[in-house]
């Protein structure tokens, strides 16, 4: 039998040894190393900062000069308040090149966001369609989708952008031969894409309130019917009831807002004897000598031109769309004279270029007070509906009305959507394929329809797989709007670049750009992560 040896007596450890043991503890070494790391970072930062301070005086003397000529870092952004001096192709009407740099920069940010937001939405649509097409049981469609994905994923975005912009958009016919898609009233030409745009009149607020009401009652009805369903065990058609009641509320709101509000007006001379819009018909009959306005076509061109009701408007105002819509409906021949600002329109009205001036009542009242013989002018009410659609129409060499998306914008948007649609398609395909076949079979066995199967079984599970990489696609798309500079789209980056070239303030603008991109990235990822949190699988 082996004897268990007694443990050797423990030797007393000297204080120095135990101290050494503490020092060579992994944790102590780690902490010391990290402190060293901080010192290294500080050292490098100081070196670079020192270089920068030395160079700031030499290379960019103007960078930090204040208005009074003194040198101070706090004046880095003062230059942004001075005149920009350059035009921006894709800017709101009221931008002029004497506006400050800040304004120009803001417009650049707005342009970037316009591309990014619409781009993400359209990419989701295109990617989903292409991803589902990849799984189509039609060999041609799936092969086509495969080639779409392969080509978009294996060539640089920049080349695709040039293809779309130079190869497609700029080779479209000119404005006069623009391709018109009939029912939608969309015009496509090498000057861009013109689409009908909604204009909100002031009664839109009332209608919107009704819409909110509609949504609320939809929810309430949904819950009530759902409870009844649970109680009785009988299915009620919640969707149809909800939509129907919502439509009723919306329709009611439309009627109410049309009846209640009268903010639109028309200024006419008292001598014309027009007291309401309907009087125009009588006036027109008198003027043309016809018995009925349907016979207007029988007039010769000169006669028609003489009889036309000439109205002045401010360009792109909802009043214009609202009035012309009514005139057209009444069959009254008219011509529109557009001005940029109300006072210009008033001037034209006063000098007799047009017989009437259409605007909101408040504008008209203000403008009327500027007229000399204000008592000889009347403001008559014009009925309005909450939303009027401004339609693009070809007038001579120009397209008026609607919203025009410039070719650069259309090109950039299209290229981004095509490129990222291809990336997203693969994610959608992988997501759908990740849902096991048994799930679909079980759904069919339960007797769900194909639509229900997709909506209730496949999509919720597929989305969990699709969303996380989809967030990456959205973020990349938002960042790649900066490629607009290659085709001359004035996004934030392009505007900053011009600003940089003009002012020489490179560092400030870079900081600004990075800040804005980070904010955009942050907002995008917060939104999408929030959505991801909502739909992701809740595990034990």
């Amino acid at each position, binding site marked *: 039998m082996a004897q268990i040896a007694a443990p050797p007596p423990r030797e007393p450890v000297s204080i120095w040894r135990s101290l050494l043991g503490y020092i060579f503890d992994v944790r102590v070494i780690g902490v010391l190393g990290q402190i060293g790391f901080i010192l290294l970072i500080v050292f490098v930062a100081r070196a670079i900062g020192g270089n920068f301070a030395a160079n700031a005086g030499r290379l960019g003397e103007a960078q930090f000069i204040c208005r009074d000529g003194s040198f101070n870092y706090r004046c880095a952004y003062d230059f942004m308040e001075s005149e920009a001096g350059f035009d921006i192709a894709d800017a709101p009407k009221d931008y002029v090149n004497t506006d400050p740099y800040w304004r120009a920069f803001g417009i650049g940010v707005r342009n970037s966001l316009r591309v990014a937001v619409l781009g993400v939405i359209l990419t989701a649509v295109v990617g989903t369609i292409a991803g589902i097409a990849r799984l189509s*049981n039609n060999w*041609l469609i799936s092969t086509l989708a495969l080639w779409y994905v392969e080509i978009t994923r294996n060539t640089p975005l920049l080349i695709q952008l040039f293809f779309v912009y130079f190869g497609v958009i700029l080779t479209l016919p000119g404005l006069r031969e623009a391709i018109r898609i009939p029912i939608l009233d969309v015009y496509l030409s090498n000057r861009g894409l013109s689409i009908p745009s909604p204009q909100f009149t002031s009664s839109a607020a009332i209608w919107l309130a009704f819409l909110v009401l509609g949504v609320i009652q939809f929810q309430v009805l949904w819950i009530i019917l759902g409870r009844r369903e649970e109680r009785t065990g009988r299915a009620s058609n919640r969707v149809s009831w909800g939509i129907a009641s919502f439509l009723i509320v919306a329709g009611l709101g439309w009627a109410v807002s049309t009846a209640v509000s009268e903010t639109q007006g028309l200024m006419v001379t008292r001598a014309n004897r027009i007291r309401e819009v309907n009087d125009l018909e009588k006036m027109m009959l008198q003027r043309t000598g016809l018995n009925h306005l349907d016979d207007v076509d029988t007039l010769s061109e000169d006669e028609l031109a003489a009889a036309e009701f000439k109205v002045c408007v401010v360009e792109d105002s909802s009043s214009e769309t609202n009035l012309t819509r009514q005139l057209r409906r009444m069959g009254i021949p008219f011509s529109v004279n557009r001005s940029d600002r109300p006072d210009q329109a008033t001037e034209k009205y006063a000098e007799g270029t047009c017989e009437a001036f259409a605007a909101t009542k408040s504008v008209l009242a203000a403008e009327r007070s500027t007229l000399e013989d204000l008592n000889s002018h009347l403001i008559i009410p014009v009925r309005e509906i909450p939303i009027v659609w401004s339609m693009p129409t070809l007038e001579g060499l120009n397209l008026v009305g609607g919203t025009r998306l410039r070719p650069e914008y259309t090109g950039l948007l299209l290229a981004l959507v095509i490129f990222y649609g291809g990336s997203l398609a693969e994610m959608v395909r992988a997501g759908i394929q990740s849902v096991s076949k048994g799930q679909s079979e079980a759904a069919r066995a339960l007797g769900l329809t194909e639509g229900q199967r997709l909506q209730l079984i496949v999509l919720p599970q597929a989305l969990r797989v699709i969303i996380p990489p989809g967030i990456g696609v959205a973020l990349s798309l938002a960042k790649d709007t900066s490629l607009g500079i290659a085709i001359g789209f004035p996004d934030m980056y392009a505007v900053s670049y011009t600003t940089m070239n003009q002012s020489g303030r490179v560092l400030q603008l870079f900081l600004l750009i990075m800040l804005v991109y980070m904010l955009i990235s942050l907002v995008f990822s917060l939104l999408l992560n929030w959505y991801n949190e909502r739909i992701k699988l809740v595990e034990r």
Partner: protein
Amino acid sequence: MTTLTESISQLRGSLGRGFNWQIFLEDNITGSWLQTIWVLLLAIVTAFVAAGQFAKLPVSTIVVLIAWFVGILLVAVGALSYRHTPLSRWLKNNLLSSVSNTILTLLVVLAIVAAINGVWQWGVVNATFDSVNTAPEFQPDNGATWGVIWAARKLLMTGQLAPAVTWRLWLAIGWIAVLWALSYVTGRPSLKARLRQLRVVTNVLWVLYPLFLYIFLAGVPKADYNVSAVLIGAVLLTAVYLLLWWQKVINFSYPTLIATLVAWPVFYTIWWGIGQSEVFSPINVDTWGGLMLTLIIAASVIVLSLPLGMVLALGRQSQVYGIPVWIIWPVAIVATLYYAFTSSPALWATARNPVEQLLALWPLLILAVAYLIGRMFRGNIVSAASTTFIELIRSVPLITLLFMGIVMAPFFLAPDAITPPKPWPVIVAYTLFSSAYMAETIRGGLQAIPKGQYEAADSLGFNTLQKMRFIILPQALRIVIPPIVGQFIGAFKSSSLVSVVGLFDFMGITRSILANPQWLGLRLELYVFLAVVYFLGSSVMSAYSRRLEVRLGAGER
């Protein structure tokens, strides 16, 4: 009682005898109102497209229509007689499975025919292939002028590189071809055992290839022999060797130690000698261009971003014992108080607007950073720094970083330094960008390794370096090969962005060629060429990645 098989065959017999229109209609058209509308819409659109096409391309449209009808006929006959031929079965399964699919097939075929016809007319029928007469007056109206690609071949491939040094580019290409051949030969299973030493030499040459490329294409300046540089380099290299040995990552042997000791001096001497001989005199790097520059940038970024990304990923995942809170907070509070009394009051007093007043409160930022480090990273500075770097870089577009590299470099370099030629800052900025993404990819691989592997390595007494080198990284990297190659492809494709910042890479030189009066009016020809080259490059890379995956994954599971 009939058996199941019998009843089924009976059912089949009864079904086969007559074609049931009702079931057919319900399956294909009247199943739901949505289906009805969809089929009708499809039919109307297809009819319009076919009519429109017929007016333009009568012959091919008729051929397509006849083929379509024949296909339907084949499938119908096969289905009704229960005797599908291979062709009719394939048609039924893949193209003509339902009414809507049948119509869709016709629509797609018509569209494809139209597209192919358009491309054919533009690219072949109306095109010219003359590389001499490419000026605007010789360009066909509706066709391509392919000659420009041959005429501009020198620019497209090498940009503004002086013709006198083109031989050095050929040398580089020849060198890589030789290496490839060596790798191929030594990698043959039948020769692998016999040529083991040659294989080692080949691998070393591969590792050194970037250096040779640099010598060939950038050149070596004539310089004095710097003894201290030799000594410092040798000492550093040996220190790294000893460190790795101390951490038991490599085995100690005298030959390797001696090799490490002399490697740098030998290399430096050769470098110096090349400089003296002036065979490879320096080339102005700004003259690089064309496909050459694209490949150089892409390859540098790929080669550099992998190790850097690995370091960043390991940094972000590091489990180092963080700086304890009882150190962080006192330091942060003292620093905050110090700056709050020395810097803030003056700033606050001279602030001109609310924003500047807010900025005057900057010492509070120190507290915020301390809070973040303590709370989010548990005092782990390495992780905090890596994470910050990665997230900062990932939130900005590449172009911004590239511009920053070019424009800001003179600001951050020492005042007396010479501004480097454009490709260098671009490569640096691009590498930083790429490595941030690479880090995230590798982190995905690190996180995919089961915890048990880390724990097993710990319980075996491995130190951190050993654990990573022998256990974690080999597995993690294998998992992330597909995304890493995806990143490489992305780096190759996105290298075209350097043209936006004024480099004359493949894309940039193309844009300048298009602006040349000699070739005015051309565009798509070169873009098509570019797209094809990029497509081929990317496809080769992804094909290689699939092979690599198979090879490395062999024996796994």
